[in-house]
């Protein structure tokens, strides 16, 4: 007499591996070729070249004051142009955008001048900390509510 456990174990132990479908290997290789053909900047940040990863953050941060300056310059240019000629709708819209940029730049200047730099850096640090905490909380909630423990990255 054989128990169900022994019987099923014997049956399943005799099962050979399922054969992967014909063309499976070709499909995977094709997908790999497609992925390799994509330029690096289209791929995930983790697969960017190391140099690009290292340069990205300072460049991204450095762009912010440049954008403020560009917006301020645009605003000044449009104001001087308005004095010499009537505005079209497009120019008017551009003036509005420029004014907003100018205002933002002025605000940034005031903030930098009036608020001690320690407070600013402290605020930025606190914001980063809160962001990291929120990110961690969301990740923990996602893992415990949506995924089971074995789904954690290996």
């Amino acid at each position: 007499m054989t128990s169900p456990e022994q019987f099923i174990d014997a049956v399943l132990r005799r099962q050979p591996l399922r054969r992967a479908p014909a063309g499976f290997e070709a499909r995977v290789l094709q997908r790999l070729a497609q992925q390799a053909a994509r330029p690096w900047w289209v791929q995930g940040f983790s697969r960017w070249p190391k140099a690009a990863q290292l340069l990205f953050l300072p460049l991204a941060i450095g762009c912010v004051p440049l954008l403020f300056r560009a917006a301020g310059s645009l605003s000044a240019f449009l104001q001087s142009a308005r004095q010499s000629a009537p505005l079209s709708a497009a120019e008017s819209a551009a003036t509005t955008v420029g004014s907003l940029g100018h205002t933002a730049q002025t605000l940034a200047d005031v903030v930098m001048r009036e608020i001690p730099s320690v407070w600013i850096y402290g605020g930025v640090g606190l914001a980063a900390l809160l962001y990291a905490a929120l990110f961690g909380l969301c990740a923990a909630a996602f893992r415990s509510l949506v995924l089971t423990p074995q789904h954690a990255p290996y």
Partner: protein
Amino acid sequence: MRKYQDMVYSTAARLSGNDAQAEDIAQEVFLRAHRRFEELKDNPRAAGWLKTVATNLTFTHLSRYRKRWVFFSQLQSQDEDGDAPEHEFPATESVSDEVQDDERHEFVEAALRALPEHQRVPLVLFHFEEMPYEEIATKLRVSLPKVKTDIHRARLALAGILARRGITAAQLEA
């Protein structure tokens, strides 16, 4: 890849019970392995890594239905409180000894696919992946008694299907 593709595909197919899904999962496993090729190429644990990733990705696929599955399987467990009686399978000569190995293997795979997911998954983890009950319970986030009950019921169901086809212990021993 040739060396491991059947293993990866088998793991995904048996756990998911869906061949098309298994193919997608197996592909994803090899794409991930390719990203870690340097790490894995001479690693004796590459097979284990591939199997773990295949299992995890299959769970991710299954997790879409997981809550519903846990809910309904627990409702069912409450209705059928207690273990099903232990059946014995007589080791007598089968009427269908002529069933060829290949046919039997295909039939067993089909029978596995026919099992409800809450029975098939722990059964496959126990018998194919050789996971202990405790680890299965942790992985599936269900209680240990439930894992044991589900596996027991899966065995009975599978044995019943096989018996109707004439696949018996005696035939296996022959």
